[in-house]
């Protein structure tokens, strides 16, 4: 049940540019909890979550083959 986590923008200052693996996370809430423990600086940062490129709300179930992306506020253009 390993989930791959990728981050962008200002979150790369905290988690780096490489994907981070999280072993046991049944849903996005559990995932974020674990990430918050590993990266305390993440706690108060603004971002939305995408699972397999779809924006989701909290408590989205994870199957283990998912890519979860943490997306800070967009700044294109």
């Amino acid at each position, binding site marked *: 049940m390993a989930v791959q986590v*990728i981050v*962008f*923008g*200002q979150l790369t200052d905290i988690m780096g540019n490489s994907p981070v693996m999280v072993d046991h996370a049944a849903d996005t809430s559990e995932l974020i909890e674990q990430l918050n423990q590993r990266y305390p600086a993440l706690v108060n940062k603004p971002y939305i979550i*995408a699972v397999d*490129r779809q924006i989701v709300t909290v408590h989205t179930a994870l199957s283990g083959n998912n890519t979860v*992306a943490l*997306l*800070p*506020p*967009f*700044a*294109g*253009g």
Partner: protein
Amino acid sequence: MITERKPKNIFTQGPIAPSFIADSIQKHNTKTNIGGHSIFLGQVRADEIDGRKVSAIEYTAYEEMALEKMHAIREAIFAKYPLVCMHVHHSLGKIAAGDICLFVFTSSAHRKAAIDACNEVVERLKAELPIWGKEIFEDESYQWKENK
């Protein structure tokens, strides 16, 4: 059999050259059902923040997601406006102040559709595409750009 339109790539490494914009305009010369083109260009601003001056913005994107989202926006815009065509280009990588980082280009028989569609694409693109910009100052320090 349904052939789906595949998402077009909108990303280009480095700045968007004025000559590229000219070529793009020139190509519409044979589309004589077009009466109006609307173009929006984003240019990197040398903002001064606490005495430090922005020398460049380094753009990154969640490319796969951005292209899927842009494809959805494109479909919605074509459903809403009678456009002849629409082209979008966004830079990735380090773009110096004064250079062009965004090129949105819409064309229609009568001007209103092209103008309204261009504006809506720019607004949606800024709000919905997962793209980020690192404002790099002349002293090599940086801050993350925020869209207002």
